């Protein structure tokens, strides 16, 4: 089965918008994806008909919202094939999920002289939380480098791990280069030395099938808004035995069992890590987004996006002076590029005038830019609702910008 692109595009109302009088070409999907009606309608339906604070309510609406929230948890559980639904913690996004692990796991397991390993390819949100905990605990942050194609130098990982290494945190797919990292191999190497692994799947759950049990990963995080769901909702998956050992990170309602001024005891998983009124409506929206993605089929999504990547790569490389950063063998539909003599800001601004949305700058991966000795790139990232015709619009747009700069 292939994707019925006309039908799919009708699911996304925003794709019909005109930008500066021109049809929107949305190529900023790695920053956030657009939302299908199925998600928007679900959010509206809950606000219109079922809104009520969840858990511990005795009335009809509260039960209805609670059921929606817990059903969403089960949808996420099945989506990433977790063993238990209570291994799914709802957070505000991948960033908060990483901060939760860095703080809670870090509090319990990281001590002076211990080591944390991240990669040179990480988003700032998978660097800074670890720097903060390392600073607090006098631990050491080590970095696994990547080669000039943007591939992690996995052969160096074993040598980086010592008996003091507590956790390795790497992304599955690089947000700025599109590299797909060999996470299965990383987890194998780490586990052989009893080191825990956190996978940042913010850029992969929307492109690849993930099975946390098969991977045997310890923690996995992602954001709802990058997988066609609402903003402000995200997921932390953690193995039950680990989450049970970890202390709560935030205190408040819902996360407690009993409270007195002498001693407070904590609730069970997953509620121990969900202090305060949770973002239940967006959790329900995330559930709807995952169901939508599953109805399209991950295999179909992957093959359509791969086709777009190959078409765009070949086409853009015919432009004189255009260089693509990130040329890994295993790549998703992200193209980071620069045209010689044209600043990324200028390129982005002029493409915007033509209705084309790309992202420019460092993409929150300054170390990656430093590796290549550049200040930033223009990044076009494709989704299954994009078309080859839209890539032609991008190609023509870049050519037009080049001409504007040539006649100066």
């Amino acid at each position, binding site marked *: 089965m292939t994707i019925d692109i006309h039908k799919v595009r009708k699911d996304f109302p925003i794709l019909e918008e005109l930008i500066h009088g021109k049809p929107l070409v949305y190529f900023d999907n790695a920053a956030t994806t657009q939302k299908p009606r199925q998600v928007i309608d679900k959010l509206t339906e809950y606000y219109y008909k079922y809104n009520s604070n969840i858990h511990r309510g005795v009335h009809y609406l509260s039960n209805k919202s609670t059921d929606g929230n817990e059903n969403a948890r089960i949808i996420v559980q099945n989506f990433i094939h977790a063993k238990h639904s209570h291994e799914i913690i709802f957070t505000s996004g991948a960033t908060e999920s990483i901060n939760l692990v860095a703080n809670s796991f870090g509090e319990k397991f990281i001590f002076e002289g211990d080591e944390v390993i991240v990669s040179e390819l990480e988003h700032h949100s998978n660097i800074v939380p670890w720097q903060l905990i390392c600073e607090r605990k006098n631990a050491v942050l080590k970095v696994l480098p990547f080669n000039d194609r943007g591939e992690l130098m996995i052969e160096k990982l074993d040598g980086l791990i010592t008996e003091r290494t507590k956790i390795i945190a790497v992304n599955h797919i690089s947000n700025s280069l599109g590299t797909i990292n060999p996470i299965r191999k990383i987890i194998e190497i780490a586990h052989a030395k009893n080191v825990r692994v956190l996978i940042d799947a913010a850029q992969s759950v929307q492109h690849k099938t993930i099975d946390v049990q098969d991977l045997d990963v310890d923690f996995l995080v992602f954001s709802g808004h990058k997988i066609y769901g609402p903003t402000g909702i995200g997921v932390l998956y953690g193995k039950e035995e680990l989450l049970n050992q970890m202390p709560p990170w935030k205190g408040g309602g819902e996360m407690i069992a009993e409270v007195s001024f002498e001693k407070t005891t904590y609730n069970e998983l997953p509620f121990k890590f969900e202090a305060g009124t949770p973002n239940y409506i967006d959790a329900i929206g995330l559930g709807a987004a995952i169901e939508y993605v599953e109805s399209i089929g991950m295999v179909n999504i992957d093959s359509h996006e791969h086709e777009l990547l190959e078409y765009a790569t070949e086409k853009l490389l015919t432009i004189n002076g255009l260089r693509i950063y990130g040329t890994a063998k295993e790549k998703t539909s992200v193209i980071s590029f620069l045209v010689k003599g044209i*600043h990324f*800001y*200028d390129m982005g*601004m*002029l493409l915007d*005038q033509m209705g084309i949305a790309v992202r420019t*700058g460092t993409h929150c991966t300054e170390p990656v830019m430093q590796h290549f000795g550049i*200040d930033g790139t223009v990044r076009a990232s494709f989704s299954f609702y994009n078309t080859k015709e839209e890539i032609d619009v991008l190609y023509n747009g870049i050519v037009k910008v080049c001409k*504007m700069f040539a006649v*100066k």
Partner: protein
Amino acid sequence: MTINEIQEDIIEEFAGFEDWMDKYAYLIELGTDLSGLDAKHQTESNLIKGCQSKVWFNASLENGLVKLQADSDAIIVKGIAALLIRVFNNQTPQDIMNADLKFIDEIGLKQHLSPTRSNGLVSMVKQIKMYGIAFNHVSK
């Protein structure tokens, strides 16, 4: 010419452009032609580092008039900087202090000066005003 007269001139010039391409081609031309900053002024302390582009900016007071220089790694940003210099260069500190910057909005370049677009231009405008206030104080 006064600050307002120069602004009116610029607004009139831009009114003549038929589409966005002409407008941006002109900004590219302005950016390319702006002489930029002497090497001795391209210092860390003159650098306004946005996460999108960099702006170098220098101001001095000569014979009671403010002299401005600017540079940027992005040509469109440099083009807009050239317009700002055209408006504020060789004006008195007091006129700069009291000036109402309106041409950017009127020629449809407001988006480049939104506080969230960290290209360095917003800080440049703020600094021009600050220098106006500071030099006004000095020249009293």
